[in-house]
């Protein structure tokens, strides 16, 4: 490693520095430093945005909460407006890494890293979050679902950076679920994870949103299962149908953590558990 290191002091400086070839943004370092040391990533210049205050704010404005890309997971979990208005996000992030990792790792970093297992992506997909992408000409917004393209791949182009995430505040009637299967509770990369936002009406499911991790090239929303379940009561038949449909939505692989077969089984079981244990 013989990178040049620049501590970035403003968004303007960041945009300018991003022009140089081989420039890589560094923030919490929880993924990046490990990758660099393993030789999986080479950078000519490291642009450290960890002290860039413009990207470290959480703001509420007109039905939305905006979270800067360099906000740490701990900051998000501790923020009262997040816990009150989008509890699913705090719930999911508490399962991410460990205390030390949550103190350093950032929401923008987790999304740009684009792991199929990214824990922060599950609640954000459920919330219909948008990412804000900036370059020297301005800003564009992209649905998170469209931002994540596959392992390590996003729609970010040369010269662009992820400046923040916009989360529409959901109906407070939604109940939140997040379940992650792994080898241990902390510091585990999910074998499979399932999150849900659920609202009931007269003993039937009024609306359900579902998202899963580690069962496709990127974390995904499970729209066909959502459509199937909307307006229906939870019965042995509807659970069985949902189990079948969810298997068609995913494309898991066998890797060092689990087999594809196991992932098919466990994601269907997580969904059944969620449906059978939900509040009336």
């Amino acid at each position: 490693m013989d990178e040049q290191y620049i501590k970035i002091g403003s968004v303007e400086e960041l945009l300018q520095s991003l022009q140089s070839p081989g420039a890589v943004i560094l923030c919490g370092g929880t993924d990046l430093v490990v990758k660099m040391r393993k030789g999986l990533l080479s950078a000519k210049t490291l642009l450290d945005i960890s002290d860039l205050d413009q990207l470290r704010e959480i703001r509420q404005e007109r039905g939305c909460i905006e979270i800067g890309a360099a906000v740490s997971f701990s900051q998000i979990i501790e923020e009262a407006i997040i816990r009150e208005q989008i509890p699913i996000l705090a719930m999911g992030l508490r399962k991410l890494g460990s205390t030390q990792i949550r103190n350093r790792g950032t929401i923008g970093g987790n999304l740009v890293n684009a792991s199929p297992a990214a824990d922060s992506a599950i609640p954000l997909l459920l919330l219909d979050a948008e990412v804000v992408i900036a370059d020297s000409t301005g800003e564009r917004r992209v649905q998170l679902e469209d931002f994540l393209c596959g392992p390590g791949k996003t729609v970010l182009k040369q010269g662009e950076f992820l400046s923040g995430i916009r989360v529409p505040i959901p109906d407070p009637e939604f109940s939140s679920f997040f379940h992650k299967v792994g080898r241990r509770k902390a510091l585990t990369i999910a074998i499979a994870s399932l999150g849900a936002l659920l609202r009931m009406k007269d003993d039937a499911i009024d609306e359900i949103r579902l998202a899963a991790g580690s069962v496709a090239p990127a974390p995904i929303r499970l729209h066909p299962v959502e459509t199937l379940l909307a307006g229906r009561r939870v019965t042995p038949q509807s659970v069985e149908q949902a189990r079948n449909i969810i298997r068609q939505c995913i494309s898991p692989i066998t890797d060092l953590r689990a087999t594809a077969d196991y992932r098919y089984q466990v994601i269907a079981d997580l969904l059944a558990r969620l449906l059978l244990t939900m509040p009336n």
Partner: protein
Amino acid sequence: MKISFTLNGKQILVEADEETRLLDLLREDLHHTGTKEGCGEGECGACTVLIDGRAVNSCLVLAPQVDGKELLTIEGLSQSVSLSSADQGDECRLHPIQRAFAEKGAVQCGFCTPGFIMSTYALLLKNSNPTDEQILTALEGNLCRCTGYLKILEAVRYAAELMRGNK
């Protein structure tokens, strides 16, 4: 490049390569070897230190990132209750958390201990009377291969009592 930060209450200025990890800066350049390297990937917590009051893995932080920050390592913890008289026994210089770990037998090989103690310190800094669940969350990033964790849990409960002045 030159890096300036507060280490255990003292302002220091050091020269470090840009890609040096904080862990290596502490151990190799500053000879603060209480901070240990276990996995080097943020999985084990043996290298835990506090930056601006929060527990972090020093193996995942690059040295220039701590410029202007306040760092606390295990060495700073024992100093912070050090007594002026040189003839006081070692035990007197221990921080209450260190005393609790020793008294409750929460140490076997000792390699993970500085990390556990720093994570405990970060917890008790914010929460003087944590529940068992809060203790386990604070320590979830630290691995111990010897103790089976029960004695560590006991030690943290006891340390909290000591620091609240109950014993």
